[in-house]
């Protein structure tokens, strides 16, 4: 309830929940705001390029962005354990890069941060959501040195190393992980501009898909050492969805042979828009278009919060990739201000593997 | 005294029941002289009680004239008529019912006292009247503590004590046993003759009716 307080105080509101026409899309991401505002925000376009190290940090002139991490881990007993962490930034007022941020002492309300942490293990799901006012100091991100934090949750580099440290605490669970990157930056779409519709709305999007993860997870009363593969996403935009798109289905898959597949499908009524990236064992990225990629749900589950597709068929033409992707058992809803499904998946078919799946726009009601 | 004390002319009263007009008193004409005793007889429901009510102004006729002591009353129910009737009932007309003639909260003598006070008489002969009617030794008792016959006697004492010109008695002995009824009736007629007041007596008891000077049969007349 109090969280509703927090985020309903935001002007734009991340809640597209009372929008039956779907005009504002999932979580209001299809909203474009008023004309004047729209022009003040920057919007990625085909041709926009990634700039490092700046793009690790926040983009105050973009409306929405996130840092997103999932990991498929294994416990000492060999059981799979999935971990997710996401931190969102929503800008209420655009701020050009040259302009200095407002002073914290003025308690500004130019932006708001939200962080999600989740664990999926043994058919159970744990989730926590935190919110914070922006430009105060207790939540934020920086590009160099790279850091993302909200209260006592933090993703930060480990000194004297290239690895990152991620610590997240929930009510009765926590994880403390070390992320080591073993690959290159994967820029999606056209040099980082990932289109989300045929008319060109989209975002800047890159990933680190080759993360080795170790650490400890405390959940269900036990602390265990874990290790496995991780996937880090970085995405930002000001008009993410086209008006009318209700949500998306996203997959980040680690295949046994070292290849990676990122695929997503945006849903708009009866039609869809798909896109993806194929990363081969050497780390070369190939952008997959609509014709190359087929994503179709093959089995549904009547879950507590709505009907969700939990088994999928993913095909990449010309590569002999025909995958059956199945969500791990249980209900894996991230039930915060807005509900979405986030779960580990098992891959079989032409390739074996595992990964993570995110399904948005399926929840029946506002939480 | 000569003349008419009570004169009734073409008296009519009907009840309206289920949309039908049921005549109770039908074009009744009669008169009563001072000191006379008239028995009003008839079947049950023939209007005996109603007639007595009309004769003391407790009910108003549909039309016709009732004249008491040369004062005429028609079917008017205005304030003046009502006040006049009340006045008559206070001082001139005494009414005795079959039962419940006395205030239960007052003793017999206090009942008589109240009655005479209302009648404006202050002769303070209440006790005497009770004795005359044979209930002198019950004077301080309450009406629910004396027998039915004694209560009726006290009621009669009360009525006589106000020196009425006319007594209307509605089945005064109706709830008494034969023996007591006879005794009470005896007292009634004796005192009536003594005081010279007129008496209109409604009864179904033929023997009682026979003791009156005249009989008015409502079933025949109506």
């Amino acid at each position: 309830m109090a969280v509703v307080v927090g985020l309903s105080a935001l002007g734009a509101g991340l809640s597209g929940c009372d929008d039956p026409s779907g005009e504002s899309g999932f979580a209001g991401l299809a909203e474009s705001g008023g004309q004047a505002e729209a022009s003040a925000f920057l919007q990625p376009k085909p041709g926009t390029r990634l700039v490092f190290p700046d793009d690790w940090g926040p983009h105050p002139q973009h409306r929405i962005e996130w840092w997103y991490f999932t990991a498929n881990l294994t416990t000492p007993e060999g059981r799979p354990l999935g971990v997710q962490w996401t931190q969102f930034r929503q800008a209420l007022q655009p701020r050009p890069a040259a302009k200095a941020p407002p002073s914290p002492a003025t308690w500004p309300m130019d932006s708001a941060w939200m962080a999600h942490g989740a664990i999926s293990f043994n058919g159970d799901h744990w989730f926590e959501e935190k919110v914070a006012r922006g430009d105060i100091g207790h939540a934020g991100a920086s590009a160099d040195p790279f850091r993302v934090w909200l209260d006592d949750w933090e993703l930060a580099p480990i000194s004297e190393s290239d690895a990152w440290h991620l610590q997240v605490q929930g009510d009765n669970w926590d994880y403390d992980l070390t992320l080591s990157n073993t690959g290159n930056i994967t820029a999606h779409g056209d040099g980082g501009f990932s289109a989300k519709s045929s008319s060109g709305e989209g975002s800047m999007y890159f990933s680190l898909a080759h993360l080795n993860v170790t650490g400890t997870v405390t959940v269900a009363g036990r602390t265990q050492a874990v290790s496995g593969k991780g996937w880090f996403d970085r995405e930002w935009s000001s008009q993410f969805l086209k008006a009318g798109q209700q949500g998306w289905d996203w997959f980040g898959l680690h295949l046994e042979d070292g290849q990676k597949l990122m695929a997503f499908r945006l849903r708009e009524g009866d039609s869809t828009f798909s896109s993806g990236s194929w990363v081969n064992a050497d780390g070369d990225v190939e952008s997959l278009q609509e014709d190359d990629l087929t994503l179709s749900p093959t089995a549904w589950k009547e879950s507590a919060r709505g009907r969700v597709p939990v088994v999928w068929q993913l095909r990449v033409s010309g590569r002999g990739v025909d995958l059956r992707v199945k969500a791990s058992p249980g209900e894996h809803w991230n039930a915060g201000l807005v509900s979405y499904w986030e779960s580990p998946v098992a891959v079989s078919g032409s390739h074996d593997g595992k990964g993570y799946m995110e399904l948005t726009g399926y929840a029946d009601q506002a939480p | 005294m000569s003349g008419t004390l009570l004169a009734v002319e073409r008296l009519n009263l009907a009840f309206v029941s289920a949309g039908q007009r049921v005549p109770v008193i039908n074009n009744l004409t009669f008169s009563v002289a001072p000191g006379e005793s008239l028995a009003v007889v008839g079947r049950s429901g023939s209007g005996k009680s109603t007639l007595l009510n009309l004769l003391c102004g407790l009910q108003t006729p549909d039309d016709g004239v009732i004249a008491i002591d040369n004062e005429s009353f028609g079917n008017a129910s205005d304030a003046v008529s009502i006040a006049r009737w009340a006045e008559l009932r206070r001082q001139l007309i005494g009414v005795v019912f079959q039962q419940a003639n006395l205030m239960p909260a007052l003793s017999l003598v206090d009942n008589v006292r109240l009655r005479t006070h209302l009648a404006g008489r202050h002769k303070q002969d209440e006790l005497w009247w009770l004795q005359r009617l044979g209930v002198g030794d019950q004077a301080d008792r309450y009406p629910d503590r004396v027998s039915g016959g004694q209560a009726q006697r006290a009621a009669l004492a009360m009525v006589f004590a106000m020196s009425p010109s006319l007594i209307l008695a509605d089945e005064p002995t109706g709830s008494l046993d034969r023996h007591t009824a006879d005794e009470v009736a005896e007292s009634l007629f004796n005192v009536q003759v003594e005081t010279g007041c007129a008496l209109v007596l409604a009864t179904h008891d033929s023997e009682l009716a026979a003791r009156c000077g005249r009989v008015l049969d409502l079933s025949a007349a109506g």
Partner: protein
Amino acid sequence: MLIRAFLSHYQRHPFQLAALVLMIVLATMLWTGVTVLTDQARSSLAQNEETVAARAHIVRTDSQPVGVEDFVRLRKTGVCVAPWLEVKRPAPEGQVIGVDPMSMACFGRSAPIQDAASLDGTPFMDIGDALRVSQEGYDSQLYLIAPRDDIELPQGYALRAFSLAPPTGELADSFLLNLDALSLLVLLITGLLIRSVYRLGLVQREASFELLYRFGVLPRQIRQLLVLELVVLTAVGVPPGLWLGASLAEALGTGFGQALGSLFDLTLYAESFGSLPWRAAVVMVALVLTVCLLEWVFPQPRQPAMVSAYARLGGGALLLAGALGVVLATELVWVFAGTALVFAGVGLLTPPLLAAVEERRSVRSGATASVADPLRRWRARELSVMFRQLALPVVALQFSIAAVLAVHALVTTFESTFEQWLGQRLAADFYIEVPQGGDSATAARRLNALEGLGTWHLVAHGKAQVRPEEAGTGADPLTADLMALTPITDLVSDWALLSSAERSWRELASGAVMVNEQLARRHDVEVGSPLELTIAGTRMRTNVVGIYADYGRPVAEVLLHADTLPAAFTPRSESFSVNKGELSRDVIHDRLADTWGAPDLQVRDNASIRELASQIFDQTFLLTRAISALTLVLAAVALLIMIWVFFTTRVWYFRLLGVWGLQGHQVRRQLRLLSVRLTLTITAAALPLGIWLTWVLVNRINPLAFGWSLPMDLYPVFWLELGLMAGAAGLLVAHLMRRQLERDANGERP
């Protein structure tokens, strides 16, 4: 067929049926309303105590004011903390409090606001907006509040209590205990009222029951039908009463909630409802069945005369026993028992007493025959009969009116007591706590030097061991709170003392002490009693020169002049109470902050606290007055019903007066005289009982429960109001009888 015969009485007297159902509805409504309101008042006071008084805020151990950096630092270590910016904007716009709803997400249920709609500036608003308001030129103070007082903090930070109002202590508890006692009385009254209406009808039906019996209907069957009838009546009457009572309570409760809603969430109240009305329903059903079917358990004896003699004797005995019990009791439960006995005794004695009074009146009327007014005598005798025959409703009404009197006195007394208590506690304009390590002596000197300052004093708080010398050397000393004042100004010398010696305040300077009422009562200390005080290891002999009322403070307290303290004494805490005089708050603040090097010194403004505390109690009293009003209404309605039902059984005899020649308006006049005298007499009979009940509540129940007494005040104006109401009820009844009288003269004879 049997059922039809059974119910035929109600066909002829539909009003009695309606009256009975109405009584059940009203009684249920009253009882439900009372229990819901009392429970609500209790839980709301508890919740408010908790929410208002027990909050924590975080301070820096280096006494520097907290700022946004501290907020950030704390949040980053995982502490749940939220900013609270108080902007002291004067009336009429008033104070605003800036908050950040997002950081309060971790407060859960103890968050001061629960939905965004309450960020409208009354008094909460977004902290950024509040800051802008303060920049218009108002004082502001930033606090960092925490949801509980037991959280762990990193180095450099400490928790302090953050209270918005002084805790009300036992004042509230006492009030609620008395309310409970009255609720029971209300239940008793409603039981009696229902019973009387029911019995009246039953008596009239005895003849028809006899008839049925003669026709071969078994008594068992008649009893079964009676029970069935009662169950149906209850089923019809109780639910509407429950709904009415709960609605009424909700209407009043919401008002309460709204008054506090400017600071606290309305949902504090929503959860008070739900299960309560069902409890009330069960109680009512049990009550109705019990009081109406009492005869089956305790059959009525056949000789009324004997009964009345026993009743009078028994009544007197009960009254005496109860009164003695109440006066002598040393425990609360015996006071309640004694009160119950007194009520029982009064209940037995009142009807015969009132009847006897009327008898004497009637005898006197008739004594001198020449000036006799037989009509007056008739009225007196009628009243005498009425009091005997209507004993039960008369007593029930007497109890109701007494209860109303007591509630009124109770509430009014509490209100004024509370005002006094607030005044005593918050006498000065400002209250300043001396920070740890602050030099109070220097501060006192510097305050003294401030031109234009109003009266002020310094209070040193500590503990002392007290032993009343009269208690003997073997008695254990008790620990009392110590308040050492200097200088003694009119800030305290205006206190109303319960008892005092001559020039008591002056005596303090010579070493005498004053004690609070708790200490005096519990340990038999009086003015002039010698006391042995041990302060900081030093023993002192002193005597008591005054006892002050300290409503609701459960601890013993000793007050003395600071100059008499032994040198070894170090206070636990010190505070200044300051009247600003001609100066502004800032000047005082700066002077003291300067002295102690504490720029974030808190100067608490007593006026706004007083305002808040008053608001809280105002609404509590509103609830109680509502209970009182409900009872009064029930009593009035019962009075009406009862008299009317009784009068209808006497209609024939009233008409007899008409037959005997009284005009209509004259008969009505007699009726009016009868009914008004009846209602006024009952009210008059309730007065002594009501006064006595008030005395018991403030002088016996309260001291035994809490150790301090309330002042006993009488409110004759209210008695007058009750009398007027009684008179009006009497006139109304007489008016309603008109139609009965004007009916056909051939109407039923008894």
